[in-house]
């Protein structure tokens, strides 16, 4: 049977092109790989190769023709045992249909995944009740994090910890203290200073079935590795149609520390929270640090777990439970109030709580909502609190532009507009790289006074 040679698409965007030159003529024998013609696209001149064997029968589009639509039959090729000279051109040069379109979006039936996602109740997870009489102990965030890792490593052989100075040095910030002694060098692994490399190795190990906890000495250094966090870890499950999972935790301190300058002081919460396929957690106190890190290690999804160096040493109450695991994706009301909601996360929660105490003295009853998870964000909790207080201030230790605070503002505008009695107000760091000088650094970071001022403004006080 004669073979139709059609005008090929030679780039992702090409719709038509110029048939610049024929390199074969009627009657020529061609085989796979023979260059048939030169075609000019909008970008370049390309060669058009034959993939079939045969004899060129008829040339239907002369060289020099411009605007030849992709799919137009430009020549006929006679196959084995056919007479090239008797080949007929097709009735009229036809244009190949581009795609077989399936259902359009409106036709999504009630049983489809989309409909389910839209209608199915999200699992109503709440923090598990702490049984009455549970002993509360005082713990630093640092120890809570360490205990979380140790407990999960005891529970699951696949869990291991890798990073710079996590083993023999006992952790640059002592978060992994004692793990090497208990679990040995097979499971507590010092890496060279090579973030891109070990983030990739950790991600590959997760693809291969392990449960890595990759520590970045700080998230500033994870910038070297962000390609693996985003392109390798976060996208794998989707790109593979759900075939290949990547259960990994990237953890370490995030945000401003103290007097370490611009390159070591940045909150990456908004960066990672913008990436579909990641879970992003940024706890404040010891209980959440422990319960959420344990949940992160057990999750089937890649998790970015953002800690804060300035909070590591703070003491909090921690319930003494055998297995303290908290739900990912749920915000927590840290302080109930009725006049205004201060939304925050990580170190900002401490600032918000302090502001709320001072505001109480002035007769303003502020609710403090700790987001805890930045992705997926607990919108319901934000909107519920808004419905109650009608005013929202977001306190965020991070840059103001494209921040979590910006996201909260749009959620309230789009889905809680009728509940708003005042504009959603952002209290963030100044929009500058973090300076070194003590006075300038102090001026750049959020503080209680700024939160109080913003709260008073939205309360019209």
């Amino acid at each position, binding site marked *: 049977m004669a073979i139709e040679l059609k005008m090929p698409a030679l780039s992702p965007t090409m719709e038509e092109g110029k048939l610049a030159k024929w390199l074969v003529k009627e009657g020529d024998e061609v085989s796979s790989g023979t260059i048939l013609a030169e075609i000019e696209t909008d970008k370049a001149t390309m060669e058009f190769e034959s993939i079939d064997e045969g004899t060129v029968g008829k040339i239907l589009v002369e060289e020099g023709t411009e605007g030849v639509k992709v799919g137009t039959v430009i020549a006929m090729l006679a196959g084995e045992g056919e007479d090239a000279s008797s080949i007929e051109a097709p009735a009229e040069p036809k244009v190949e249909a581009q795609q077989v379109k399936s259902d359009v979006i409106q036709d999504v039936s009630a049983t489809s995944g989309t409909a389910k996602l839209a209608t199915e109740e999200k699992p109503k997870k709440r923090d598990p009740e702490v049984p009455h009489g549970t002993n509360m102990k005082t713990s630093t965030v640092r120890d809570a994090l360490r205990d979380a890792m140790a407990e999960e490593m005891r529970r699951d052989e696949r869990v291991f910890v890798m990073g710079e100075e996590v083993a023999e040095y006992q952790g640059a910030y002592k978060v992994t203290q004692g793990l090497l002694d208990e679990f040995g060098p097979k499971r507590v692994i010092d890496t*060279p200073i090579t973030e891109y490399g070990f983030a990739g190795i950790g991600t590959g190990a997760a693809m*291969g079935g392990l449960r890595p906890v990759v520590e970045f000495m700080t998230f500033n250094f994870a910038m070297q590795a962000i390609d693996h966090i985003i392109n390798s870890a976060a996208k794998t499950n989707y790109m593979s149609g759900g*075939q290949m999972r990547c259960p990994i935790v990237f953890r370490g301190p995030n945000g401003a520390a103290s007097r370490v300058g611009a390159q070591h002081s940045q909150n990456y919460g908004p960066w990672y929270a913008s990436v579909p396929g990641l879970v992003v957690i940024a706890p404040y106190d010891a209980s959440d640090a422990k319960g959420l890190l344990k949940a992160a290690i057990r999750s089937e999804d890649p998790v970015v777990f953002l800690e804060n160096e300035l909070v590591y040493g703070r003491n909090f109450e921690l319930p003494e439970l055998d297995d303290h695991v908290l739900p990912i994706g749920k915000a927590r009301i840290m302080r109930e109030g009725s006049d205004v909601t201060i939304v925050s996360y990580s170190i900002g929660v401490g600032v918000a709580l302090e502001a709320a105490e001072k505001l109480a003295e002035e007769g303003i009853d502020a609710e403090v909502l700790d987001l805890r998870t930045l992705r997926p964000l607990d919108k319901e909790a934000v909107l519920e609190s808004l419905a109650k207080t009608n005013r929202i201030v977001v306190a965020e230790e991070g840059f103001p532009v494209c921040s979590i605070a910006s996201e909260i503002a749009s959620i309230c505008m789009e889905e809680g507009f009728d509940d708003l009695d005042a504009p959603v107000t952002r209290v963030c760091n100044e929009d500058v790289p973090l300076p070194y000088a003590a006075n300038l650094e102090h001026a750049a970071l959020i503080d209680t006074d700024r939160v109080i001022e913003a709260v008073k403004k939205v309360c019209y006080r």
Partner: protein
Amino acid sequence: MPKTKTDAASGTTDTPVTPATQDDFDLGSLQQALEGDKRYKADKEELLKLYEQMLLIRRFEEKAGQLYGLGLIGGFCHLYIGQEAVAVGLQSALDGDKDSVITGYRDHGHMLAYGIDPKVIMAELTGRAAGISKGKGGSMHMFSVEHKFYGGHGIVGAQVPLGAGLAFAHKYNEDGGVAMSYFGDGAANQGQVYEAFNMAALWKLPIIFVIENNQYAMGTAVNRSSAETHFYRRGSAFRIPGMQVDGMDVLEVRKAAEIALEYVRAGNGPVLMELNTYRYRGHSMSDPAKYRSREEVQGVRDKRDPIEHAKAELVELGMSEDTLKDLDKTVRKQISEAADFAESSPEPEMSELYTDVLVERY
């Protein structure tokens, strides 16, 4: 001279550390083994099988190029034509139950070398629900965890540390598996490749790094991009033995793979193999190929084609022309069925837009 070091914090006892001396690393130790006996001794049936796999890849890729031209395949599409002997030769030496493979975006051939149904691969190229990634990955992002094939990665060089991670998992699980990480001469200039080399050698990870040197990083010839164009030497700084292999001869590839596998399986750490090969087509479908001459491409096709080479050898071994002709027909039929399937099967349901973003619901 032996040194000792102590670590007061962990209380571990002195660990003797043997420093590297010049003479205990020989870059060419495995090459010597290969030089002694370069080609795998395949009988007629074995060679026919390898030939069939290479032919399947060739015909598949030609068809893919055609479907791209018809607008049925979109975006980027990188063809493996010319490089078939690499994936086929190497993968034929692996233990399918234990060993894992990872590669970059030029991944159709590696999938086919596993015997994965061409239909589901072609349907992925056309973005259909029946595709191996449900149509959500495309040409560059195909995976088969069942076959321990871990993709299909679009960021040049990313598969090298990821592959080292797979090797890490083999070692951690003590499952006896070896990871094979393929990358190109272009990727060989990425920094993360050397970060992975360092850790793989330091931790003696069971991995074979495979550089498919097809002579061009997109349009940049190796001598215009690389200070050291003998890529097998690129592991020297990490004490990784190198091998230089004719990637156009499937039996030499197979033999080299066996030597490398034996070394890696014995717990010696990584091997770096450079396979010299050639890509007949452009870097991707939209490559105007102005950086090399037609004569150069034709010269390789005429003189070094891996499939023609294997075919001639089969004939020499007494395989009849008819058998080979029938095989070609069978393969063409298989590919044309795959193309029909890929053209006619439906696109993904709209619901797939939102599935598989995360595994769990929170």
